């Protein structure tokens, strides 16, 4: 076995059992009694703030009351009616910034109702049962192309199929799921949950999946618009922003999303190489996911280098603490300067209100591996109008082209969250339905 202190980038730095333990479910399912105790804490607020805080507006007090009264299946239906990916959202949502952050018990005691874990309890319960909980409306004869089988596309496809439309869903990758499958830390989606969820979702019927087909590759928007009654684009952000510094192209400098994707697809984490010294550039969820997982693979030193202060960090305080508790060092107000052999030079920054500036003071960290996590970019716009580096949309995801909708990370207005993508996909589906049927 290689040791954590072995130089360079190497696999198997720690024992397989240790790796397995590290990558176990971050939030273990609630035990039956814990469910009752957690559900009992909900106050059933009027016009509840948690619902307002949920991008998909799940009726949280109702589903918790349904759990509390012994009907988690009914609770799950309440969840899925608003958010068909409620299972994944229960695992990956930054609840501390959304529902649980808005919970009145957070205000009262600093201890919100455990909405995320209760949602997982309900959705796990129903998904473990046979069959799909919803039935399709009679066929409408309308056909819709959904490009991208990530959270936005899946949500859109399911809603359209349920309303009786025939959906063909395309994805560039070999597997559907998008970032749920390729872009989220493994300890948030264990035991192949992302694929199980897609399979379960497809149980509605009326959705045909074609993988390995990308817009700009096998697919063109013109052809899709010609062949289908409507098109929904949920293609995400395929590109990764470059660091724009000397040494950006050196060996050992990679995209955090690629590292995470490779890790998610690996059948043997012990065979996955990781640096002894890892530096992640960025301050969002992806940075934390890459940093924590590097540590869990056995890297000796892992640092997140973020160019602004803690308060500006995209990752929630919970995620920051998660990183810190795994031994990841958080550095603030530093920006990459240049990458050299075995290390990275960072420059301290200051913001005097006139934009971020380097101070001239630098620090060098040893680095065998540097991960870029400073945001992603649209790789394909299908010729649509782009605004703010995203596809311009108005209303429920209407692009500037008739008959074409967009949602999720690729569209304007998203905030790069699974749950937001689900909401946009769902709302676009309702708008498409209205447009196609005049309903």
């Amino acid at each position, binding site marked *: 076995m290689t040791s954590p202190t072995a130089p360079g980038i190497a696999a198997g730095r720690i024992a397989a059992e240790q790796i397995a333990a590290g990558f176990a479910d971050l939030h273990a399912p609630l035990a039956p*009694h814990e469910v*009752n*105790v957690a559900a*009992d*804490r909900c*106050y*059933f*607020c*009027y*016009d*509840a*703030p948690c619902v307002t805080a949920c991008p998909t507006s799940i009726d949280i007090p109702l589903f918790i009351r349904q759990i509390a009264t012994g009907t988690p299946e009914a609770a799950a239906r309440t969840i899925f009616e608003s958010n068909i990916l409620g299972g994944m959202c229960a695992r990956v949502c930054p609840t501390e910034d959304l529902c649980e952050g808005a919970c*009145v*018990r957070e*205000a*009262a005691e600093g201890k919100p109702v455990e909405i995320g874990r209760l949602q997982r309890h309900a959705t796990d319960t129903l998904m473990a049962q046979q069959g799909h909980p919803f039935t399709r409306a009679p066929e409408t004869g309308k056909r819709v192309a959904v490009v991208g089988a990530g959270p936005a596309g899946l949500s859109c496809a399911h809603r359209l199929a349920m309303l009786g439309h025939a959906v063909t869903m395309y994805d560039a990758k070999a597997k559907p799921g998008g970032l749920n499958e390729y872009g989220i830390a493994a300890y948030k989606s264990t035991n192949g949950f992302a694929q199980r969820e897609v399979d379960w979702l497809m149980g509605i019927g009326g959705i045909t999946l074609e993988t390995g087909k990308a817009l700009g590759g096998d697919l063109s928007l013109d052809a899709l618009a010609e062949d289908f009654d409507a098109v929904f684009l949920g293609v995400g952000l395929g590109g990764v922003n470059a660091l724009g510094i000397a040494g950006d192209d050196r060996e050992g400098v990679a995209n955090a999303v690629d590292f995470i994707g490779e890790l998610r697809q690996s059948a043997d984490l012990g065979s996955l190489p990781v640096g002894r010294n890892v530096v992640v550039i960025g301050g969002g969820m992806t940075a934390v996911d890459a940093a924590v997982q590097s540590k869990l693979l056995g890297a000796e030193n892992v640092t997140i280098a973020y160019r602004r202060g803690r308060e500006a960090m995209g990752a929630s305080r919970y995620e920051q603490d998660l990183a810190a508790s795994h031994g990841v060092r958080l550095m603030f107000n530093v920006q990459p300067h240049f990458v050299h052999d075995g290390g990275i030079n960072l420059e301290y920054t200051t913001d005097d209100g006139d934009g971020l500036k380097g101070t001239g003071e630098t620090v060098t960290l040893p680095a065998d591996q540097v991960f870029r996590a400073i945001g992603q970019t649209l790789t394909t716009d299908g010729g649509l109008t782009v605004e703010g580096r995203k596809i311009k949309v108005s209303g429920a995801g209407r692009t500037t082209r008739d008959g074409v909708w967009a949602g999720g990370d690729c569209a304007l207005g998203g905030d790069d969250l699974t749950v937001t993508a689900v909401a946009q996909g769902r709302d676009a589906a309702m708008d498409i339905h209205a447009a196609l049927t005049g309903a």
Partner: protein
Amino acid sequence: MADLTTDFLGIQSPNPFWLASAPPTDKEYNVRRAFEAGWGGVVWKTLGAEGPPVVNVNGPRYGAIYGADRRLLGLNNIELITDRPLEVNLEEMARVKADYPDRALIASIMVPCEEQAWKDILPRVEETNADGIELNFGCPHGMAERGMGSAVGQVPEYIEMVVRWCKQYYQRPVIVKLTPNITDIRKPAQAAKNGGADAVSLINTINSITSVNLDAMSPEPMIDGKGTHGGYCGPAVKPIAMNMVAEIARDPATRGMPISGIGGITTWRDAAEFMALGCGNVQVCTAAMTYGFKIVAEMKSGLSQWMDEKGYASTADFVGRAVPNVTDWQYLNLNYIAKAKIDQDKCISCGRCYAACEDTSHQAIAMSADRTFTVIDEECVACNLCVDVCPVQDCISMEQLPSGRTDPRTGKLVLDDYANWTTHPNNPGAVAAE
């Protein structure tokens, strides 16, 4: 440290906390553990007549109602009186009393309504040196079907008759335990007094079905697919019990008669409330069955601390203090006007007060876009529902409108004189104020 020593009917006990006649006091082993834990007295589980003892069911005897986190709020039982031979119980009682002379030991008795039955058992109980007897006229299940328990307690004439026998054949104090399964609790209490009883104790358990098994379609606890009504007790029955205690305490016919309070007493505060309503001591069962005998330590320390804070030197100082303030609705002051007030610093914006008031009451709470909740004095009738449903203690309070102010709801001046329904112009039976 306040002195908790209690004198009830001349029976001394180191504190007012007795264990009620029930499973916890069925035998020597339990009672010794109770005394070691610090209980002031016990009422030994009900003795039956000599001969083959009763038998209990061999399935579940209890059913429960839960609050959050499976906190037991109500318990229901179908257990009968002691199923051990009379002589065994009597021997054990004598031994325990000899070993714990400072503790109260009362024998609960239930035998048929025949003079001979009482004449037979009472001398034998007297020989144990028990401090007194409690007549079980309360159990609503099982024994009532055989003409005992609540079947007696529901007929005041029987109560009076049996009490007379007891006073005739037994020299020590006689306590009559009343059933709440009756329309007017004052009648059996009056009967007990007329018969010469030294005290009443109440309440016994309330007839109940705690739950229905929706698979088997049978009441719980279920015995081979069937269930029966049982006796309900525990925290859930406390309000019912306290009202009955207060009714007896303020009834001119029974005023001053000693009362031993029973019914959902779980904490020192519950005990203090019963005692303020006129109980010389209290009896506990469900709390002990839920948490074990150790709870008496909290009851003693809590009552003692409260008495010190209030300056009560002995329990007699506060027993009955709340009785004069229990009145009839018609005597409540209609000139007393209050309004709800929400403490915005304490409010967590859950909106339960709003939902309750808007949906089910007087539309007297306003909700702003930023979830600030405020009382609309023009609509508020001070019903208190918002206070009751608010999850934050002391967040909403009822504040009295001082006299001289105008009530924005009625447009009328708040008066500082007392006026009640008996003289109100809307009352067709009103009498002129004198």
